[in-house]
């Protein structure tokens, strides 16, 4: 087993542990499992919010509230649709939109029977979800640093392209082309046929 496989196996088992903790909260209101989730995710949610320009005390409060939302919505988590980190990311993202931007987050209900589906849906079971997560991880680590910075800034720091250009001291066109290249690369690395 080479070192990259080693890393992905560790990441996979960590993802399974986190999913199991979320399910323990959902089924048994397991406070110990929740405390473990808190210790790992709360500081990272706080970090995410700080990077979006949120003041420290507000980020602290929102990270706590995001974890309370994890507690109350744990039964909504579906390990076949997303890994725990992805689901918690979406909770933190939506809470921030609600509390700091005072806007609603329009979303679709994936259980809505009226959603239009593919005539022949791809087998998107838990295994497939796991593979997708792995490919995303690989895609991210293989981006050239200048593209990774542009993606990170636009993804995690709510920064308009013009401001990214100023911060990185490059022309706006460069930011746009790096973004395009990065998205193309991520897609190519994901091996997606669209």
């Amino acid at each position: 087993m080479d070192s990259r496989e080693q890393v992905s196996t560790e990441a996979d088992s960590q993802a399974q542990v986190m999913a199991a903790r979320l399910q323990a909260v959902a089924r048994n209101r397991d406070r110990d499992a929740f405390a473990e989730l808190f210790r790992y995710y709360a500081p990272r949610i706080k970090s995410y919010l700080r990077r979006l320009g949120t003041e420290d005390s507000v980020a602290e409060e929102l990270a706590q509230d995001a974890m309370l939302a994890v507690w109350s919505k744990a039964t909504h988590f579906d390990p076949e649709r997303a890994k725990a980190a992805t689901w918690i990311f979406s909770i933190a993202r939506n809470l921030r939109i609600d509390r700091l931007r005072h806007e609603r987050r329009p979303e679709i209900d994936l259980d809505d029977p009226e959603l239009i589906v593919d005539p022949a849906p791809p087998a998107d079971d838990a295994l497939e979800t796991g593979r997708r997560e792995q490919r995303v991880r690989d895609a991210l680590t293989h981006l050239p640093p200048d593209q990774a910075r542009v993606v990170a800034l636009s993804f995690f720091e709510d920064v308009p392209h013009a401001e990214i250009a100023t911060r990185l001291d490059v022309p706006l066109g460069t930011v746009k082309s790096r973004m395009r290249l990065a998205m193309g690369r991520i897609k190519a690395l994901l091996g997606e046929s669209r």
Partner: protein
Amino acid sequence: MSASFHPSDALLAAYAAGAMDEPTALAVATHLAFCPRCRAEVARLEALGGTRLESLPAAPMAEESLASVLARLDRTPPIPRAPARGATSTLPGPIGAYCGGDTSSLPWRRMSPGIDQAILVSCGHAQARLIRMEAGVVSPRHRHAVTEVNVVLQGAYRNEATHYRPGDFAVEDANRLYRPIADSDTACLCLCVGDDPIRPTGLFNRLMAPFMG
């Protein structure tokens, strides 16, 4: 039948990241209800968000943080999953949430003969409104000061040679001339997101403008 016109990758990324105003996010979410391909793309981008969240350095939490959250758990009851929607509404879920699943209660305003609009949500400059064109209606020729987005909900329309059907995410660039025609048998209902009122450009429409709206 799923959609033929989709949001750009940059728009899907901004939606997944939460870096998008509410009216535009409503247009993207509405398209997602029609489009399994873009749903899969958003799921991938959100997975990217989850992966980045895990890779961020941990920011130290306040000393009493965990204890105070644990103390609040008992006062934080579980929120049950919402039951799946009944098959009665004719509007996609994200739109239904803005009008109680029923458009008849909205404050409709007549814009020009056969064309009505109702505002669903505005924030800052951006505005999401429903536009209903009666079957066969030819809209006044107009241009937009900024880029607008139309998502077809029911019926269909045509602009020059391009045909838009339910779920299609049509981007109307600023400064080009548009003259949509509702060319289905039924009325055409669209979600339109933009930040300026329609500016009539034809002589007839300039003359009519004071009497519209």
